[in-house]
């Protein structure tokens, strides 16, 4: 099954009516801490069903229960109990340390997996996810079916999950706290969340306790009060949250990734694993993508191929181009280069069941006449070459150069990725050379000047007679200089010493650019005013 979506620009809160008349957008997933689905101890907890297991975390020097499984609930433990108390209640307890970083990673992995349902997936840390399924549900047989697919798939992998679909994200999240698997019709939020306890709102614990003490046990109770009363006691933030939960307006969710301009994808009933099929799929997807972009005269500047493995792992590979790509063969070739050059090759495992190709950034293509103006053709060829090389070895390794206004040799040039700055570089204004003079700057410049040993100089400010560089002694036959380059004192790191550069030729004819770091008399002195020896460096090699 192949789904092709034109640029979708769904907003959260935008009502999309599906076939059965039920409308609802955010699907909220929560991985409850109660139950064996706590991500941090997932694998180990599933193995030991009989003995209660808990995950503990340190809070203000006390070790408290952070998450517990079903058996622990049966044993009468609850989250927040000190570990010592828990052991007293239930001595045969298996204890694991909480690992928030691993929890977050697992949540991100699940979010990656959820990308197969909708491109708009938002994290709701620490244990929740929002999926904006506007216009996506019908691809999976309706909202209820989609909900079942998500819950079943995650359950099969050992996560306890509760999920709900509703018109607003907060209402959906509130529902997941107490009732999983519900699809709430548009406008029925208030009715659905009314009977739930106030703790389901997920407000500040102080607010929840306060509400309970005030005798407001359920969300319905709170909603029956006038909003200004609630605001006066619990703050306007809580009133807003309550309003969202009741379906009055909605908090925006922030999706993890920007929505691509174009998406094409291919689903496989039988997972595929061979390179040939993957390559064939990519090229047919490229054709579909180009056809979709072509209708609006667009070309892709950034492409992303996502490979969804059957076991839930998702691998995304991105290529960028210097100019909008409009030919499927180009896309095909760029991805082939990229896949060839991967350090850790694409691992199909038990196979991919979904391959998606998305154009993350597109541009309007300016058609140019190609027949007569050969330079247009040449430029196209060169940027295509740069794209290919960049796809394989990385965009930062292919550079063009721009001059900078600086006297400091190592700061006088700016190297920029050729993909994006080719035009700027070909129009750059480099200083003109003085006609008839030999070069003043070396051909090769060391990124950091290399220290040399200079035994003595005839005069303190003068050039050396010989120097040792990389363990070889060079006797100086010719000298030009000094050329004094002062550091940029107006910059942050401008306190460096003034350099005196000399162009020297040794007795073999090799030419070096060497400098003395610091001026005698003024700069090279210690605190007592005694003169210090100067450091010498080789900074470049002349031809």
């Amino acid at each position, binding site marked *: 099954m192949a789904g092709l979506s034109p640029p979708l620009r769904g907003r959260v809160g935008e009502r999309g009516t599906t076939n059965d008349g039920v409308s609802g957008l955010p699907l909220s997933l929560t991985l409850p801490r109660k139950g064996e689905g706590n991500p941090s101890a997932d694998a180990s907890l599933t193995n030991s069903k009989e003995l209660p297991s808990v995950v503990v975390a340190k809070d203000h020097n006390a070790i408290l229960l952070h998450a517990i499984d079903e058996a622990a609930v049966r044993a009468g433990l609850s989250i927040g109990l000190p570990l010592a108390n828990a052991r007293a209640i239930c001595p045969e307890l298996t204890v694991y340390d909480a690992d928030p970083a691993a929890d977050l990673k697992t949540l991100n992995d699940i979010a990656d997996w959820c990308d197969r349902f909708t491109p708009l997936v938002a994290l709701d840390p620490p244990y929740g996810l929002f999926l904006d399924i506007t216009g996506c549900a019908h691809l999976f047989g309706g909202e209820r079916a989609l909900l079942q697919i998500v819950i079943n798939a995650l359950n099969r992998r050992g996560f306890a999950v509760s999920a709900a679909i509703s018109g607003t994200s907060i209402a959906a999240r509130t529902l997941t706290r107490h009732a999983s698997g519900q699809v709430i019709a548009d406008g029925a939020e208030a009715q659905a969340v009314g009977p739930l306890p106030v703790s389901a709102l997920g407000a500040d614990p102080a607010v929840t306790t306060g509400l309970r003490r005030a005798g407001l046990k359920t969300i319905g109770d709170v909603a029956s009060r006038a909003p200004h009363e609630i605001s006066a006691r619990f703050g306007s933030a809580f009133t807003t949250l309550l309003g969202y939960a009741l379906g009055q307006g909605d908090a925006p969710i922030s999706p993890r990734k920007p929505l691509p301009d174009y998406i094409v994808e291919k689903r496989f009933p039988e997972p595929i694993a061979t390179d040939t099929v993957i390559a064939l799929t990519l090229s047919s997807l490229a054709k579909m993508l180009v056809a979709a972009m072509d209708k609006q005269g667009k070309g892709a500047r950034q492409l992303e191929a996502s490979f969804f493995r059957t076991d839930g792992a998702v691998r995304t590979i991105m290529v960028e181009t210097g100019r909008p790509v409009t030919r499927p063969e180009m896309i095909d070739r760029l991805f082939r280069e990229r896949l060839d*050059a991967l350090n850790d090759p694409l691992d199909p495992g038990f196979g991919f069941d979904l391959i998606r190709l998305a154009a993350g950034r597109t541009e309007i293509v300016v058609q140019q006449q190609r027949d007569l103006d050969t330079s247009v*053709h*040449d*430029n196209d*060829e*060169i940027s*295509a*070459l*740069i794209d*290919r*090389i960049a796809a*394989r*070895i990385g965009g930062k*390794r*292919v*550079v*063009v*150069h721009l*001059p900078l206004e600086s006297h400091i*040799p190592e700061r*006088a*040039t700016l*190297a920029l990725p*050729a993909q994006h700055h*080719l035009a700027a*570089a*070909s*129009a*750059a204004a*480099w*200083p003109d*050379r003085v*006609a008839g003079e*030999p*070069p*003043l*700057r*070396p*051909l*090769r*410049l*060391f*990124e950091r000047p290399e220290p040399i040993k200079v035994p003595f100089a005839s005069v303190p400010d003068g050039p050396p007679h010989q120097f040792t560089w*990389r363990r070889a002694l060079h006797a*100086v*036959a*010719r*000298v*030009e200089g000094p050329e004094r380059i002062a550091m940029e004192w107006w910059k942050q790191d401008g306190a460096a010493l003034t350099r005196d550069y000399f*162009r020297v*030729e040794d007795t*073999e*004819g*090799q*030419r*070096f650019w060497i400098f003395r770091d610091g001026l005698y008399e003024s700069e090279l002195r210690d605190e007592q005013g005694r003169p210090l020896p100067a450091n010498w460096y080789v900074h*470049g*090699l*002349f*031809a």
Partner: protein
Amino acid sequence: MNGARTGTLASLRGSIARIEAPSEAAMPSRLALGHTSADAMLRGGLVPAALHEVFAAGHQGGAATGFIAGLAGRISARKPLVWVRQDFSDRENGALSMHGLAEFGLDPRLLVTVRAADVDSALRTAADALACDALGAVVLEIWGDARQLDLVASRKLTLAAQASGVTALLLRIAATPIPSTAETRWIVRAAHSPPGNAASAWGAPRFEAELVRNRHGPVGRWIMEWKCDECQFSEPSAYPQPVAAAPAHRPHQAQARAGHRLAS
């Protein structure tokens, strides 16, 4: 080996050479370096659309870089130039300085540099770039002895260069020459400035270039000077003329010399 077999082998080699060599008419015109006697030895200049190797004598990276930059400048004329080099070469010999290249007579606007992590990816990138006929030349800079740069690799580069018409220039620093399919191979070291006192200004860049291999002609050794303004090589300006008088007119000798391959 007896005479008949030698003869057969020679004729077979000849026919292979005829098959392999593009016909003279199809050959693009040679590009003169500007140095008269070197151009004469090269029968008019460097062959474009072929592989040329430049080895730095010892670790003299500066002089070899200058020489190959000169060759690239001559060959690519006003077309873009791709310079591929290893990360390690950058660290060992310094990065290319654009201001230096500009003063040397090359236009930094036409230069795209690629830093490859290792020899394999450098070779592959160079082969890719050679396939793009919009370029003037591709310089591949490899530091040290590279196992990957064998006869097969150089044959690939040569074929790519022939197919597209882009010249491949291979710069090797701290490496020993090994058999390859290069059209010419040069060993370059720095040459002295013309005699003068220590404080007098040095002159134009000067190389002692030794042509150690020339597939279709003899070899030689020259002092060359690079004219930054004209962007060409020339005879060293301030050196006195060679001590031995040049032959007045001895065409037969030149022919005889051209017939021999002094080295391969």
